[in-house]
């Protein structure tokens, strides 16, 4: 332990801790911009500068370790003036269009401008002009709004291990962009949107589909149906200042009805359906010598990654469509027939925690004949904007429940939004399918939590099934190397692009609050624990769907409608 003084407060800090963290531990907040927790300090922006007795210049507190007897001042006129100048310079080279900006009122630059009392433009000079990159189906990059903090670059390189964007050129001409400025669409980007979550401004944002959805809702010939992903209900409340991990399923359903959707269905239904298909596929592969290990396929970011980087892995990926695509496909076939609707009149909107799903829904093969399974995808953030625009006062909404039959779900589906969830849900069903018995303990703790790679072995009637859960695409490399070399001991591997999975997806509310992933995760496990039915094969509506339409999992018809194919895009 090291003892130091910060603003006349005695602080005991662990050796190696930064001044920033030591200050935070006693309730002193120091502003940061380039700093990202858990990554090596960057020290680029200097907004965290503090005075340290005996040192000449200002010290970047995010990068400087504490020393015994150190005397730190975080709030002197010199410090405030330096920070203010930094903010002023950033603001002057930033578009002055806060009023019409998607990050208005949720922008770190705006907050700093307010915090340091900017009231006039003291500097003027050349400001940069850059075109907006709208090349991808999911995301937009607006380099004019970029303050070059580098957080997106670091998340892309150091957390996700993708490296689609980086600093390019030098000095005033520096810009964060893709190689040759060709746009995200032809870069290595998998559109996961983790960069959006760390961007302090609106330089990175989703490509909004709200206009399309609003147009469909006012079109009298369209039968608009909305479905909501498991992870959205656990985060939506954050946008209304509710505590992290508040489950707002009931209000959300009411809100969606008030927006004018004819039916409000739950992607959890098709998550159960996915489990039926995927567990059956796994058993089939194990019993018939198919490509093993089998990888999950519900994460389109992972699928895109494999198609671009590791096409040799593609035969190992389950052919199941992702749950919201299955829901769309069932809506435009089974449900349309049952309700006497023309499939082409049905307009399916998915509310997803994800930016990649926008790209996924536009994939040509995810369609029934020429109709896309899902017509539009909006993120959690876009849904909140839609609610606000429609005058829906979320806090006071009564509770409602999903429509049936495509709204019924089990606890197994609820945990799809969190790392290890698909694995746990699939094993609950696979265990039953192979052994004919139910698992004694449905909580498979080994696959829960935020470790990079989680593994377990499960004994099912003498058959040992080795499984792994990869939490974050940045951790998948070694596992893929093993599979490609034929040395993998696993039978089933869950891979999810975002760290923590969909609860921390690129379409989720943007803030840097502590423990957000853990608390959101808890909310989903709580929903599961509260459910009467917790295994996908117990879902009555799913059973009916098989009885009336698909006959059995992996049937010919199921293959046609619920399964898909992948392409080498290297």
């Amino acid at each position, binding site marked *: 332990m090291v003892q130091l003084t910060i603003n006349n407060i005695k602080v005991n800090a662990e050796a190696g801790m930064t001044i920033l963290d030591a200050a935070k531990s006693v309730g002193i907040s120091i502003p940061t911009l380039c700093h990202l927790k858990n990554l090596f300090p960057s020290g680029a922006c200097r907004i965290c500068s503090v005075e340290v007795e005996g040192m000449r210049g200002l010290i970047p507190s995010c990068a400087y370790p504490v020393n015994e007897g150190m005397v730190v001042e975080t709030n002197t006129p010199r410090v405030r003036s330096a920070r203010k100048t930094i903010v002023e310079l950033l603001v002057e080279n930033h578009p002055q269009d806060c009023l019409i900006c998607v990050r208005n009122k949720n922008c770190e630059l705006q907050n700093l401008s307010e915090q340091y009392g900017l009231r006039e433009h003291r500097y003027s000079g050349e400001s940069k002009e850059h075109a907006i990159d709208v090349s991808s189906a999911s995301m937009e990059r607006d380099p004019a709004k970029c303050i070059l903090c580098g957080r997106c670059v670091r998340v892309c390189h150091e957390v996700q291990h993708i490296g*689609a964007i980086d600093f390019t*050129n030098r000095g005033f001409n520096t810009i964060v962009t*893709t190689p040759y400025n060709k746009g995200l669409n032809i870069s290595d980007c998998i559109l996961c949107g983790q960069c959006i979550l760390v961007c302090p401004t609106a330089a990175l944002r989703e490509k909004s589909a709200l206009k399309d959805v609003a147009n469909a809702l006012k079109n009298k010939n369209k039968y608009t149906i909305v479905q909501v992903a498991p992870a959205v209900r656990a985060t939506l409340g954050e946008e209304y200042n509710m505590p992290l991990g508040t489950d707002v399923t009931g209000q959300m359903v009411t809100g969606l009805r008030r927006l004018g959707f004819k039916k409000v269905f739950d992607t959890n239904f098709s998550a159960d359906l996915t489990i039926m298909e995927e567990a059956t596929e796994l058993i089939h592969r194990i019993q018939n010598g198919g490509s093993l290990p089998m990888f999950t396929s519900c994460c389109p970011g992972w699928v895109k990654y494999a198609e671009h980087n590791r096409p040799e892995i593609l035969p190992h990926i389950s052919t199941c469509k992702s749950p919201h695509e299955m829901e769309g496909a069932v809506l435009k076939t089974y449900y349309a027939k049952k309700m006497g609707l023309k499939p082409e009149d049905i307009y399916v909107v998915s509310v997803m925690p994800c930016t990649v799903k926008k790209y996924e829904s536009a994939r040509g093969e995810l369609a029934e004949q020429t109709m896309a399974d899902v017509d539009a995808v909006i993120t959690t953030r876009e849904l909140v904007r839609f609610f606000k625009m429609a005058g829906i006062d979320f806090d006071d909404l009564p509770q409602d429940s999903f429509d049936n039959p495509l709204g019924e779900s089990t606890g197994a589906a609820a945990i799809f939004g969190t790392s290890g969830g698909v694995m746990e849900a699939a094993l609950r069903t696979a265990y039953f399918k192979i052994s004919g018995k139910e698992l004694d303990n449905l909580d498979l703790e080994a696959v829960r939590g935020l470790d990079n790679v989680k593994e377990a072995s499960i004994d099912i009637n003498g058959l040992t099934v080795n499984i792994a859960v990869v939490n974050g695409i940045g951790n998948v490399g070694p596992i893929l190397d093993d599979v490609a070399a034929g040395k993998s001991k696993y039978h089933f591997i869950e891979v999810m692009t975002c760290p923590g999975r969909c609860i921390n997806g690129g379409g989720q509310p943007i803030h840097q609050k502590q423990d957000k992933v853990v608390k959101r995760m808890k909310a989903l496990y709580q929903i599961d624990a509260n459910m009467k039915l917790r295994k996908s094969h117990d879902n009555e509506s799913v059973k009916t769907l098989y009885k009336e339409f698909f006959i059995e999992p992996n049937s010919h018809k199921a293959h046609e409608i619920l399964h898909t194919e992948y392409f080498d895009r290297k």
Partner: protein
Amino acid sequence: MHNHIFEKYPAKDKSQLIPLLQDVQAIYGYLPELALQEIADYVGLPLSRVYGVATFYNQFRLTPLGENIIRVCRGTACHVKNSANILYALESALKIKAGETTRDRKFTIEIVACIGACSIAPVMTVNDDYHGRLTVKDVPTILKKYQTTTKPKASAEPEVKLA
């Protein structure tokens, strides 16, 4: 054409990036896009990072050089002697900006901070030849001379011409 260069360097060693870029540029006179991708794969870095490094340093070029390289001095003495106008005259005549190459690949214009020939300011070099005490009127004549040469002159003794 550049594969033999890779052999000199250990694979997946990102500290070798800059020497590799230098060696590949020495072959082509610039860094072709395909070579950049190969270098990225070889050193084990994303293309974005390699591209970032290649655009950060002035020594690296991403476009081929012209047959004739015009370097316009924009140092203090030349600036005082109106070198901005010389540059402008060149850019207008060749219809390119400094740093670019004409479509016929005859000329590349570069800006130099100081050529070290202040006594004959304003000055520019074409390949190894020095052209000093320039006026805007001299530009077309000089360009015409090099327009007809097919290859850059490789003389041991650089020529100094005063307008």
